[in-house]
């Protein structure tokens, strides 16, 4: 599992959660909420999709780690590596 692979997984999930958004110019270091029309329910959708698709649990106290795309990758990469479930 590489950073690019995790980034693509997250982008795929954001594409489902925010299907009307253009993700081609998404900046990795800028808050997702500042670039996309996303609210707390959307972030819960991201958490749910990680749970459903990849069996990864994100505890509530870790939600701030998902604020940016880079943050998502940094936070999720070790969890994907620990996960025994194929992505």
């Amino acid at each position, binding site marked *: 599992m590489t950073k690019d692979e995790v980034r693509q997984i997250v982008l795929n999930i954001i594409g489902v*959660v*925010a*299907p*009307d958004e253009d993700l081609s110019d998404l900046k990795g270091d800028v808050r997702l909420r500042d670039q996309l*029309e996303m609210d707390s*329910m959307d972030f*819960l*959708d991201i958490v749910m999709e990680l749970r459903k698709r990849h069996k990864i649990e994100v505890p509530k106290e870790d939600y701030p780690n998902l604020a940016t795309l880079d943050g998502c990758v940094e936070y999720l990469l070790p969890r994907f590596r620990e996960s025994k479930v194929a992505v």
Partner: protein
Amino acid sequence: MEVRGSGGGRSGLAGRGARTTLRGPGREVRSGRDAPRARDLDGTERSATLSALPDNQRIVITGVGLTSPLGDTLADFRRNLLEGRSGVTTIETRFMGRVPAGVCRFDERKHQSNKERRRGTRAGAITIFCAREALADAGIELAKRDPSRIGVYVGVTEHGTVETENEIAAIREYNYDTKFWSHHHNPRTVANNPAGEATINLGITGPHYTIGAACAAGNAGVIQAVQMLRLGEVDLALGGGVSESIHSFGIFASFAAQNALADHPDPTKASRPFDVDRKGIVVSEGGALFVLERLSDARARGASIVCEVVGYAMNSDAGDPVLPTPERLAQCMRRALDRARLNPSDIDIVNTHATGTELGDIQEADAVRAVFGSCTEVYVNNTKSYIGHAMGAAGALELAGNLPAVYDSVVHPTINVDRLDERCAMPGLVLKEPRRASKVDVILNNSFGMLGINSVVIVRRVTD
């Protein structure tokens, strides 16, 4: 086509073109000596053409938005009604296989984003579609209105069963582990969901709620809108009803358990109120919302006026939870007539609620005969024979389907009655073919529901 009475209507059965086109020059105004009049017990004169209310208390419909198994515009819906075409098909239902149902085919994406659709409900989508189509039909530009003075009143038979069934099916895939239960479940299933989704989509900040009134709900939504306008709570109202019921297996299964679910090898023949061989209800989805305004406001903005809501009533059977009571149904119709200051003979069309159940149809026919039995110029029809039972939308959709009659004077028939059950015979019942009336000024719309809830709305062509 039979012509009853004298005088002419418009030629052509399909209304006045492809658009809703309910307005326009209309027919000759009947007033003065020609108008039917009577006196109340207190000596007050009743009139079929003049209102005793000031214009700021008279409530009119100025726009219609709908989706039905027979089309997504009033023009299409009406054309199919006059052509006698059934909108019933079959759908695959969870646990039950194929069942007859009325399905809408409007474009959800016309007024909603992909994200809205992902989050929202089918009932919300139907409401948004109907609301936006109704506002466009009324010529309302929301940007020029105070959004806090607009109310949304949506009748529903039930809400939340579809979403709950879907969610249970979803977590079944996860061995019923509730951590996979969606956080969208509550906003999807709160009772105000359909109306609330519409306010979010439209940016309306006035009051919104649903009116839970079983299958009397479509009328109840209209009545609520009328009342709020008369109270001055809002200046513009969207009122009517919606239904997403076909997406719940439970409603089909429950009617089946009651021996009240229609079944026929040809789904277009399954919904057959008043027929000897009727077997029960065809469940349908749909919606109809009306733009309602005070007559004074409608005239001030130069709105085209479809009709006036001149009477309404609601009451309760306080009896059997599923079988209607003829006495209460008749009482509800009479109270609506009293509020409208009309006599039964002033009504031109009675749209029956009849759903195709054995006893329900008989009970309503009893009530209609009790109120209108001595009338020689009242036509009686039924719309569920075409589209099935659209539940919370039924009252509003069926009212909409009859509205064009006030301009074309044509009464759509009840279809699928091959052998009339004599217990359902009513004077003026229109069967098989449309009939041209000498005039259609006033329509009485019945809509009744479980737990003994009854609603009646009377609309009249505005001629003064």
